[in-house]
């Protein structure tokens, strides 16, 4: 029997004890005396969310392929266990060995969304690791961050020893080798960090200094030593077929959010929507070969026993061999009663045909993401979808037996007017009208149109990084406009409307474009009880409001302020391939309501061709 870090008495008194005991199928077990480096990989949210993340499984595979490394997992204890651990001084532990995180060599934290920042501090705190990197001694694990939020790591700079900027597949081996070397010759934290800062993609925040203008904007950002790079290069895998993939991912005992095989078909997106950070960060678009994907799918299904497989990509319809892949999966899965889930598909004849084969038409719903109500505003955000596409797709779907449609929009987009917002309601109405045009005897009851709006958050490394964000009051006013307009329409009974919380959105915007001074706010909020901010029921607005007061930080500086072309952004020291000049050009074109074509139709010279592969060179092969 494996030992458990928590007593029976504790495990039986908390919700879902299986979150904390490890021992799942395909979890990796090694003899700790036979490995040189122990890595704890953390997703700072509850187990069910963290276990659903593909990136962690890839890194788990990547590290554990090395015989000299044992990579284990750790997630945020839920609030019930959090309380018990604090009361009884129980240190945070890794799921596999159940050993204390404090004794590991590395604590890797993937940072997928801004609202998990206080959970990062929880992980450090419960582990007994000082929150501030500068207070850690040589015995503390090295705390390293990765994931999309590290493209602006500055709000978290105080809490991390290192950040890994980009895709994990390229530089982690070099970092581990460097660490082993330092261990052999007597480890000193400072010396290791100075050497690590020269590994491609590694950013050591303590070795850089920011100065500010009187108006609060950044005056300079510079390395403190001459031997480390002033600019950090994003790391990226150019040959996905050669990169490791978790063929035997861990199978959790309890039902997690993503309880299925996940097949990552491509990285990046050719579309260039101007609000979308992932679409810019992961350029250029690279794909796995269809033959490789078939093999991966077979292996993963065999090794997990999952009853569902899902494709993963930012825009599955843009995968060139989608039809071949999907037909293969239908062949393989049909006989074995395995479900196929196809997210991010454009609604057209092909996708309707496929979806009709793989799901129950009566129960499932169709999803469109027009993101903006009017064509004018869709041009501003460069979302290629037209009203005609949507009505045609919905019409075909209704004819095929579907009667549920979901529509996703954003509110508070740059240049957005009252008319643009009302157009959201009008579009929903037109879809309803299209449904009721079908002769009554051919319809299956009423149609259900669900309109959801989120509030727009400008993100670093997008053309909208210069855009001011709305205030909470403005956001809620916008949602009211949509709500009233929907209620005033003839078919309002067929349309349901949901909108997001505005408090969390404003905070997300602040953290997304924050600088180093924001670290104090996060620490203050955490110390006063902020945790699980991404969970509506747990989010405590007052704590954050008080944190701004306590630290003397003006949130408006980060959210509603309009930025100038030449402003130095906190994240400008990262070279992510796509050039700032391109993003500015796109920001101008947005305001001129000009559409930019997708990467396959016409190269717009964003800069990502510097990586020498992917979609940038497709036609040249």
């Amino acid at each position: 029997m494996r030992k458990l870090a928590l007593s029976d008495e504790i495990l039986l008194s908390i919700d879902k004890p299986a979150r904390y005991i490890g021992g799942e199928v395909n979890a990796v077990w090694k003899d700790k005396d036979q490995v040189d480096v122990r890595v704890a990989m953390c997703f700072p949210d509850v187990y069910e969310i963290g276990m659903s993340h593909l990136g962690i499984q890839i890194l788990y595979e990547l590290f554990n392929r090395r015989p000299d490394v044992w990579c284990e997992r750790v997630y945020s204890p839920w609030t019930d266990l959090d309380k018990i651990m604090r009361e009884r001084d129980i240190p945070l532990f890794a799921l596999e060995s159940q050993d204390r995180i404090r004794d590991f060599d590395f604590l890797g934290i993937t940072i997928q969304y801004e609202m998990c920042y206080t959970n990062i501090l929880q992980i450090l705190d419960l582990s007994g690791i000082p929150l501030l990197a500068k207070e850690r001694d040589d015995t503390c694990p090295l705390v390293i961050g990765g994931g999309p939020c590290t493209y602006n790591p500055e709000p978290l700079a105080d809490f991390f020893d290192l950040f890994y900027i980009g895709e994990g597949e390229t530089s982690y081996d070099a970092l581990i080798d460097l660490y082993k070397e330092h261990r052999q010759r007597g480890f000193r934290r400072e010396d290791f960090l100075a050497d690590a800062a020269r590994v491609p993609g590694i950013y050591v925040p303590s070795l850089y200094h920011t100065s500010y203008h009187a108006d609060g904007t950044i005056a300079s950002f510079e390395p403190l030593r001459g031997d480390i790079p002033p600019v950090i290069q994003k790391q990226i895998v150019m040959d996905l077929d050669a990169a490791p993939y978790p063929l035997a991912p861990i199978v959790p005992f309890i039902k997690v959010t993503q309880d299925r095989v996940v097949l990552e078909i491509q990285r990046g997106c050719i579309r260039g929507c101007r609000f979308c950070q992932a679409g810019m960060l992961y350029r250029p678009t690279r794909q796995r070969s269809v033959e490789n994907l078939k093999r991966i799918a077979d292996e993963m299904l065999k090794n997990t026993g999952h009853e569902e497989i899902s494709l993963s990509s930012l825009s599955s319809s843009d995968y060139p061999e989608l039809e071949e892949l999907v037909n293969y999966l239908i062949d393989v899965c049909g006989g074995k009663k395995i479900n196929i889930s196809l997210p991010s598909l454009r609604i057209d004849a092909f996708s309707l045909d496929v979806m009709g084969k793989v799901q129950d038409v009566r129960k499932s719903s169709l999803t469109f993401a027009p993101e903006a109500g009017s064509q004018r505003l869709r041009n501003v955000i460069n979302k290629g979808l037209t009203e005609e596409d949507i009505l045609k797709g919905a019409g075909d779907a209704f004819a095929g037996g579907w009667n549920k449609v979901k529509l996703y929009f954003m509110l508070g987009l740059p240049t957005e007017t009252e008319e643009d917002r009302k157009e959201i309601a009008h579009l929903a109405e037109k879809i309803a009208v299209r449904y009721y045009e079908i002769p009554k005897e051919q319809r299956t009851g009423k149609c259900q149109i669900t309109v959801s709006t989120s509030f727009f958050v400008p993100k670093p490394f997008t053309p909208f990084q210069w855009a001011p964000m709305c205030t909470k009051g403005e956001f809620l006013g916008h949602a009211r406009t949509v709500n009233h307009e929907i209620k005033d329409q003839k078919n309002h009974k067929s349309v349901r409307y949901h909108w997001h919380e505005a408090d969390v959105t404003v905070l997300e915007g602040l953290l997304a474009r924050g600088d180093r001074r924001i670290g104090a706010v996060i620490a203050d909020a955490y110390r006063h009880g902020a945790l699980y901010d991404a969970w509506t029921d747990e989010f405590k607005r007052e704590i954050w409001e008080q944190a701004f007061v306590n630290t003397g930080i003006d949130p408006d500086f980060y959210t509603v302020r309009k930025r100038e072309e030449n402003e130095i952004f906190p994240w400008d020291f990262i070279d992510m391939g796509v050039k700032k000049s391109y993003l500015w050009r796109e920001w101008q074109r947005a305001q001129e309501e000009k559409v930019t074509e997708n990467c396959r139709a016409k190269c717009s010279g964003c800069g990502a061709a510097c990586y020498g592969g992917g979609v940038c060179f497709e036609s040249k092969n």
Partner: protein
Amino acid sequence: MKFIGHLDVMRCFQKAMRRADIPISFTEGFSPHMVMSFALPLGVGLTSSGEYMDIEVDAPVPSKDAVRRLNEAMPEGLQVLSFRQIEEGKAAKAMTLVAAADYTVFFKQAERWPKDWPERLREFEAKEHIIAAKKTKTSEKEEDIRPMIGRLEPREDGIFMTLSAGSAANLKPELVMEAFAAHCGITLPEPDLGLRINREDLYGKKTAHGAGSVPWAEDLISLQDMGREIES
């Protein structure tokens, strides 16, 4: 495994069936599911050395082969001991066959109990009626549990017991222990009553009984013995 709830154990077996490539049957319809059911769900916190489930297969698999394949697919803490064919029809569902279960209950802190507890146990067993508050999700009602207790035997730091189990009458060992603790004049601590409980085996009845009558020792047959090995 004792921290994994019944539904999750079931999910775990469903995935294991696929990994082991057992040709399990599915129900008809648009969302087919495996034909599989457990004889008697095990509560969270309990361990067991005698759980049963029945499945339907499209083609026979030799017992030895199935046991090996399933065990290769099992997580630590779950082991398939035997894979047997049961008669179709009358015995199709293990769940309907269960009549009794054996448990061993261990005291985590023996010092909590009076020194003479084995004698107290004999007194307790000799009682004609044992009234206990049986809790359901919605209510709590007093009930005589004595007829549902088959055997009570002292063991080192614990008690071995045979209790009614299944859909007709089901008695949990925790309830017996609470009643026995009350008899000894002590109360047991939450969340696990300071006990470690292992279910030893499940039994069916050899002969048919009318409703309400409880079969004991001589009439019980381990579910294991109701099936036969599948030869290759």
